[in-house]
């Protein structure tokens, strides 16, 4: 029986439990289910949960634990000289044994016997069955493979019995608990609530994981580069240190990257927020249902275009266009046709990124604005307010928390974006305030330091982790501030 059949059978038991539980509840109620605490379905679900949940848990544990146990028991049988090798190479041998075991299952009984007698034949025999193994196996491996196969078979049998027992047992236990005053709904709901909690904890686990996966490497970085040079440094110039010819350490100033991140993000928001918000307002308040139902998904396509497309769009179209137009303007004004907007610039990146971000603002805001009850609009319109006054003073304030949520999400996306910045604003880390000049962002550097030719043990690569953690903390602070603002201005309608 494979795992999926087992799961199917467990599900079937749960299903039967559901039906039996509901039945029993109905019977107890004497047909008047109102005399029971909960609806029959809840009793059914209660039984089903008690049958499926422990069984699934057991199965999960088994799936994790059994291979580990079998692995160690096979390894304990390894010949002494193999045991003397490192854990890693033992692991490799085990991998090979697994391959052989897979192959043995494909062989017929006599072929298997032949292989056991003469290990040198094994590779050819298996090759003929389409199972590739890398080299000629050693003699002990065939025995181990056979052991592995039989252990696995035994474990699977045990597992199936245990899981099915638990499923049936759980169902029976729960079934017996059914009584008129038994609060099945509450029990079922608390299981649902527990699963909601589990779902929310994934977000927390993710955070923990992100921090943990960056922290050790970041500390390695700070062991090599003083923290103050990183946090307060104004020059970003990590020298190339691969082959060591010019192996000076370089400078890891965070400030230019941070400024670039905030600046480019700001410019992007400058395009995305007004455009997205006005588009949302127009779609939800002015446009006909038809127009809205077409334009909204269309705008959403903007969020799905891969960012590399935006990047090349900026690189080949927007950047040169801005550069040329600036030189024309400059020329008309002063007679000197030199451009004041660089082809790669904060403006180019902000603009193109802004386009990508439009749907982040527009679609969600549109939903939230639409959800504002009509009575509020009527109240304002009935006082003689124009549509725009109603929107500005009544609808938008009422929709504020959602809109701020959308804007925060947009800002987050702007901070996390790489490809557009690389292609539109370049990778030069500089401190300056002219939007027509290139700058770059923290994210860009995280990606490029992680994916380059750089020696992975060097601070040049490790700095990516320090950058990641720092960015994480800075955006956290910005978000806390945003939450505070929302709380302050929230208007809860009835």
């Amino acid at each position: 029986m494979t795992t999926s059949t087992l799961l199917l059978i467990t599900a079937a038991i749960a299903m039967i439990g559901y039906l039996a539980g509901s039945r029993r509840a109905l019977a107890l109620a004497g047909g008047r289910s109102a005399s029971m605490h909960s609806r029959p379905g809840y009793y059914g679900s209660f039984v089903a949960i008690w049958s499926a949940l422990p069984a699934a848990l057991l199965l999960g544990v088994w799936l994790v634990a059994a291979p580990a146990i079998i692995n160690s028991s096979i390894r304990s049988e390894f010949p002494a000289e193999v045991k003397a090798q490192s854990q890693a190479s033992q692991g490799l041998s085990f991998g090979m044994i697994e391959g052989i075991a897979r192959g043995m299952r494909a062989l017929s009984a006599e072929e298997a016997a032949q292989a056991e007698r003469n290990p040198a034949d094994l590779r050819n025999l298996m090759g003929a069955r389409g199972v590739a193994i890398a080299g000629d196996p050693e003699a002990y491996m065939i025995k181990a493979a056979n052991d592995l196969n039989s252990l696995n078979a035994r474990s699977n049998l045990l597992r199936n019995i245990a899981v099915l027992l638990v499923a049936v047992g759980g169902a029976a236990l729960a079934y017996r608990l059914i009584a008129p005053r038994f609060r099945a709904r509450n029990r079922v709901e608390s299981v649902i609530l527990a699963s909601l909690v589990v779902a929310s904890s994934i977000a927390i686990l993710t955070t923990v994981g992100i921090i943990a996966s960056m922290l050790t490497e970041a500390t390695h970085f700070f062991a090599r580069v003083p923290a103050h040079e990183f946090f307060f440094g104004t020059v970003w110039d990590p020298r190339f240190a691969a082959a060591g010819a010019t192996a000076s350490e370089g400078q890891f100033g965070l400030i230019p990257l941070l400024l670039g991140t905030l600046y480019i993000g700001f410019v992007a928001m400058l395009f995305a927020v007004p455009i997205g918000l006005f588009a949302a307002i127009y779609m939800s308040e002015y446009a006909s249902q038809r127009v809205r139902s077409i334009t909204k998904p269309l705008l959403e396509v903007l969020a799905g275009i891969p960012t590399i497309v935006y990047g090349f769009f900026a690189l080949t179209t927007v950047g040169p266009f801005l550069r040329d137009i600036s030189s024309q303007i400059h020329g008309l004004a002063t007679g000197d046709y030199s451009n004041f907007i660089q082809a790669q610039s904060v403006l180019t990146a902000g603009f193109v990124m802004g386009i990508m971000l439009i749907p982040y603002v527009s679609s969600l805001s549109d939903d939230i604005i639409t959800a504002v009850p009509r009575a509020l609009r009527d109240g304002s319109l009935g006082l003689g307010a124009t549509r725009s006054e109603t929107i500005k003073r009544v609808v938008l304030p009422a929709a504020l928390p959602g809109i701020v949520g959308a804007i925060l999400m947009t800002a987050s996306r702007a901070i996390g974006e790489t490809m557009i910045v690389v292609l539109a604003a370049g990778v030069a880390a500089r401190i300056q305030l002219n939007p027509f000049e290139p700058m770059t962002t923290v994210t860009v550097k995280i990606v490029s330091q992680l994916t380059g030719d750089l020696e992975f043990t060097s601070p040049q690569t490790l700095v990516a982790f320090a950058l990641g953690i720092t960015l994480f903390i800075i955006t956290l602070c910005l978000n806390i501030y945003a939450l505070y603002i929302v709380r302050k201005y929230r208007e809860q309608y009835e």
Partner: protein
Amino acid sequence: MNMMTEAAVEKALDQRMNDLSYKMIGKDVSVYYGEKRALFDVNLNVRQNTVTALIGPSGCGKSTFLRTLNRMNDTIDNCRVTGRITLDGDDIYDPAIDVVELRARVGMVFQKPNPFPKSIYENISYGPRIHGLARSKADMDQIVEASLQRAGLWNEVKDRLQESGTGLSGGQQQRLCIARAIAVSPEVILMDEPCSALDPIATAKVEELIHELRSNYTIVIVTHSMQQAARVSQRTAMFHLGQLVEENDTDKMFTNPDDQRTQDYIMGRFG
């Protein structure tokens, strides 16, 4: 009740007013919600400086008619109005008409109180501010206080003007909405059951307000209370199943109506 004597005075006044011009004229007004027809060729005129009461069983189209008078029906997606309604002789459904101005001139108090989720102060000051009716903060404070006073809410909320309007009790919200509407001093005030959530004393206060307003404004009020209709209005219109059954002097209506259905309704014999 001392209102009855007042009503007599009103009646005399009414006689004089009768020959005054109509403030609003509705001719062959029909309203459709999608396929469903909610009003059937209603012809009803609203006299200047008069209180007109609309009565009729629930669902007969009173609110619908009221909303046609300041085009609040426009905000309902599938709602369609035919016929002609004029305000001071101008067709309000004329595309050239300015709905915003119309609604500023024809104010409305809705059946379900709908305070903005803002502070009580802002609820009231909202209208005056958008119309630019207050020249200064002091001016505005004064408007807010006066409006709340007139709606009989001032005493209850004067210490909590900065709290949210949605945190008020049902009756308080209703009075807040009345105060909000009168704060912009419209020429015509449409009130959809303004006293439904009010206790007798608050009701009396609102009725007093209506009396007071009447000399300068035109008022149309929907009410389910015959007594209230009799007390506050000079003219009464009776709706039934989307049709205007009868429109008449209030006195006549309640003593000797022309239509049998009116008679029956007032006597409580159908609904």
